[in-house]
């Protein structure tokens, strides 16, 4: 739970695929093969499978959530699953594959370090696979795995797999994804999921599970740009601690050490880190994603929403922002609309001054004459805020580069935004 080890022992990944590509079966298989599925859950699933007249136990039912979905036989929202192996702990954000659910995919992807995109070996690259890869790239998920499923249905044929792989590599090379892997498997039989498939001796790469266990994630963090959004000021003002003043928050980038000179944004005041505390004990260094409390040498005015950086490497401070957004609600976005905006630990109000283009997620094409963004649309906008936002581009830092828009009348979260360098 502390420092480097814990964060590289935990892998958060999302899964995406079109309906019937076998996503639920694959997740069920991972839970089953890692012995995460418990006896009572298995008994329940066996029972339901039998009642529905399924021919074999349907592992997909292990991942079924709410009743409405069970009734409709589809998954409708993001659900989270957990499993662990001796090497790592895993959190799966299971997102549905329907055309209209870009919104959920973006939600699942926002916290993921890896995304598994399922492909049906019989169909190869379909429109939705492109969409999934595109979203993974847009959300800057560093690692993507194309799981070519249902290999049993194509006779475990190498040529089929290689053709799909080549097609995807060509497409993926135009996207911004650091690391791409291709794994031929069968969620139904378990081949190449947790155990190597004897049926595919031509495949020499890792099984899916081994890949998940060993993919190198510790270097994904930004250790260069010091960014500390102040979340909470601790001031006991008690007899025991009359002068205690600590700035608590989660490190969003860089390495902070006692003695470092720092600047407080937006005020621009400079001071020095006197000491760093983690859960009451002093520590020598703090880096993302540690939650710590900083003490500063000077009695400068610092409050929630301020950002602590190094004087020679500051976040940008601006009131006009360019961003890619995903629109998440029925009522469309249009220019002149006003929203509440949350960025790091700061709320402000924003007006949409320009809609530059809508992005067609299937082709990557920019639709220049768009006048609004509808549910599940992606687009590039310009915002003007009432107070300064202290940020980096999303490409540089996923924490200081992301924001949400909230409808001030309904309080609904209506957009996910990724800032572009100004």
């Amino acid at each position, binding site marked *: 739970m502390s420092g480097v080890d814990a964060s590289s022992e935990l892998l958060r990944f999302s899964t995406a695929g079109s309906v019937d590509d076998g996503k639920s079966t694959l997740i069920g298989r991972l839970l089953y093969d890692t012995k995460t599925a418990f006896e009572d859950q298995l008994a329940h699933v066996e029972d339901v499978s039998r009642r529905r007249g399924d021919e074999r136990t349907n592992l997909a039912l292990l991942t079924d959530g*709410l009743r409405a979905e069970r009734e409709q036989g589809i998954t409708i929202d*993001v659900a989270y699953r957990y499993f662990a192996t001796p090497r790592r702990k895993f959190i799966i954000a299971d997102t549905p594959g329907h055309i209209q659910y870009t919104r959920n995919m973006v939600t699942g992807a926002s916290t993921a370090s890896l995304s598994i995109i399922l492909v049906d070996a019989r169909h190869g690259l379909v429109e939705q696979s492109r969409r999934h890869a595109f979203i993974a790239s847009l959300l800057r998920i560093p690692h993507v795995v194309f799981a070519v499923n249902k290999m049993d249905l194509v006779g475990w044929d190498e040529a089929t797999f290689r053709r799909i792989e080549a097609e995807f590599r060509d497409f993926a090379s135009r996207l911004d994804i650091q690391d791409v892997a291709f794994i031929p498997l069968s969620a139904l039989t378990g081949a190449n999921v947790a155990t190597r498939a004897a049926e595919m001796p031509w495949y020499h790469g890792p099984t899916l599970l081994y890949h998940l266990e060993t993919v190198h994630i510790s270097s994904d963090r930004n250790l260069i740009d010091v960014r500390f959004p102040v979340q909470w000021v601790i001031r006991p003002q008690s007899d025991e601690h009359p002068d205690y003043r600590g700035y608590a928050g989660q490190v969003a980038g860089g390495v902070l050490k006692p003695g470092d000179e720092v600047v407080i944004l937006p005020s621009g005041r400079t001071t020095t880190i006197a000491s760093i505390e983690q859960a009451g004990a002093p520590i020598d260094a703090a880096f993302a994603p540690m939650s710590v409390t900083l003490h500063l040498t000077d009695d400068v005015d610092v409050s929630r929403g301020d950002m602590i950086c190094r004087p020679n490497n500051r976040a940008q401070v601006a009131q006009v922002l360019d961003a890619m957004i995903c629109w998440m609600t029925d009522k469309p976005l249009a220019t002149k609309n006003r929203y509440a905006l949350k960025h790091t630990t700061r709320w402000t109000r924003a007006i949409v001054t320009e809609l530059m283009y809508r992005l067609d997620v299937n082709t990557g094409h920019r639709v220049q004459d768009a006048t609004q963004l509808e549910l599940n649309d992606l687009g590039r906008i310009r915002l003007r805020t009432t107070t300064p936002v202290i940020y980096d581009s999303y490409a540089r830092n996923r924490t200081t580069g992301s924001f949400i828009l909230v409808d001030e009348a309904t309080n609904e979260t209506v957009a996910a935004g990724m800032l572009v360098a100004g």
Partner: protein
Amino acid sequence: MRELAAERERPCLLFSGGKDSIVLLRLAEKAFRPARFPFPLVHVDTGHNFPETIEFRDRCVASLGERLIIASVQASIDRGRVTEETGPRASRNRLQTTTLLDALEAHEFDAAIGGARRDEERARAKERIFSHRDEFGQWDPKNQRPELWALYNGRLKRGEHLRVFPLSNWTELDVWEYIQLEQIPLPDIYFAHRREVFERDGMLYAANPFVKLLPSEQIRVEQVRFRTIGDMTCTGAIRSAATTLDDVIAEVAAARITERGATRADDRFTEAAMEDRKREGYF
């Protein structure tokens, strides 16, 4: 927790005396010490708790020096807000929802921190970390706010409230490992001890004054421990020899039955039991 404390004016922390809420208290210490917590603790007391839980609760609250508010199900019954169930399977579990919602309203709390985890039960897998409840305290699983990055939206209209689940992404084993790492004291009933029990529907229950035995049921003494702590009427025990944290962790790691499936009668009634209760405003 800090994010909630910053976003809402009147939060509270639901403290049951169970291990998950004990872990919440440790997290709150880490988030806010050396200052006091920016919220009181609330215990929904069914009157059917294990005496060990209540004793532990009082000790715990005294050593933290924080404020505890007790919301009593008995008081809700006495005021006619709810009606006591009858019969051998009577439980106050479901009545807690009204007591909790009444307490939130009476103290004007706009957010309640709870120890629920997504791995506990299937309906919980889709629960948000900041989960919105309407003015009737109800959860609408189909109309939840998307939760992006770590940007929590705590905005509310009057009368609505939030349930906030900091342990959403923890598993049962994570909780135990954390308790061990942090050396957090727990009520004794989490560890193996000899106790008078009776068997019902394939589960072991503690003999207690609130349950009438069926003619076929008999009290005997067994060595047991509890994996969750709820009411004496609906929390089952498991046979166990695990007397230390290490033993418990070894047992949990090897367990083949989920925590709630093994020991909670309340979830077994119908396939979607938890989902129904959560919609109504249960924890």
